[in-house]
């Protein structure tokens, strides 16, 4: 049996939205790269000295570039979508622990215990402020 710490998906709705956000980010990069390539090929085909044969090459290469970028984009979207799920899993855990700790501190009127996270954690600033507030509140 797997524990919540071992399970990748702990909060499905939130983690799914993060996975989709990563995939959407890849889509943004794909759109910009494809637009850049296609616009360049289009402008090249409009120059005065380009022959019909060269225009045909430019058109076929533009279409090929689109499909290559799309395939690469889909692969990256899947990889980064998965990465987003894993990354959000590491984000959900400390937040759940913080919620439980805060709930306990608000219910208990005793001396507050300090909540600890690693100094580099994204929650570090918030935790520091909350610890200070609780100390002040219970003085």
């Amino acid at each position: 049996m797997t524990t919540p710490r071992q399970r990748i998906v702990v909060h499905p709705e939130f983690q799914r939205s993060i996975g989709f956000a990563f995939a959407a980010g890849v889509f943004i990069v794909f759109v910009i790269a494809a637009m850049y390539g296609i616009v360049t090929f289009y402008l090249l085909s409009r120059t005065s000295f380009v022959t019909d044969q060269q225009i045909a090459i430019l058109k076929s290469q533009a279409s090929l570039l689109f499909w290559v970028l799309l395939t690469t984009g889909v692969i990256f979207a899947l990889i980064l979508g998965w990465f987003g799920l894993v990354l959000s899993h590491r984000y959900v855990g400390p937040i759940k622990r913080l919620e439980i700790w805060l709930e306990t501190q608000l219910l208990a009127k005793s001396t507050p215990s300090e909540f600890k996270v690693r100094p580099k954690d994204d929650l570090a600033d918030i935790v520091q402020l909350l610890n200070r507030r609780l100390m002040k509140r219970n003085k």
Partner: protein
Amino acid sequence: MNISRFLAHPLLRFQRGRLVFYCFLGVAFIMGLITWWYIQSTLKFAGISPIAVGAESSLLKVLLSGYFKFGIILGSALLAATYTSQRFLGPLYRIMVWIKTKELGFEIADLKLRDRDMLSYLSRLINQLYS
């Protein structure tokens, strides 16, 4: 999507934000490299001189320049990373700003986060702590 939140999001402030940016920088670099390679090989294959093209159209000269390609890679990575990081770390940043404002003694409305942000329960607890 709230545009002001998107523009004001401090992407590189958070450790995970920086990680997201580096990921998208890698993706943008690979996609940019593919695009650049396709354009260069097509020009070579079709026998089109980039110098002649640049002389006729200044827009094409800009599009084919190295600086522009670098700008496209960096710009797309920044845009994608800011969008993703804002969805991911934005609520956390809003909580931090709210607490700091409250600590400074300003009277502000209760902290509210959407249910789908997962932090709505935490925000209710923080409201209770500061009430």
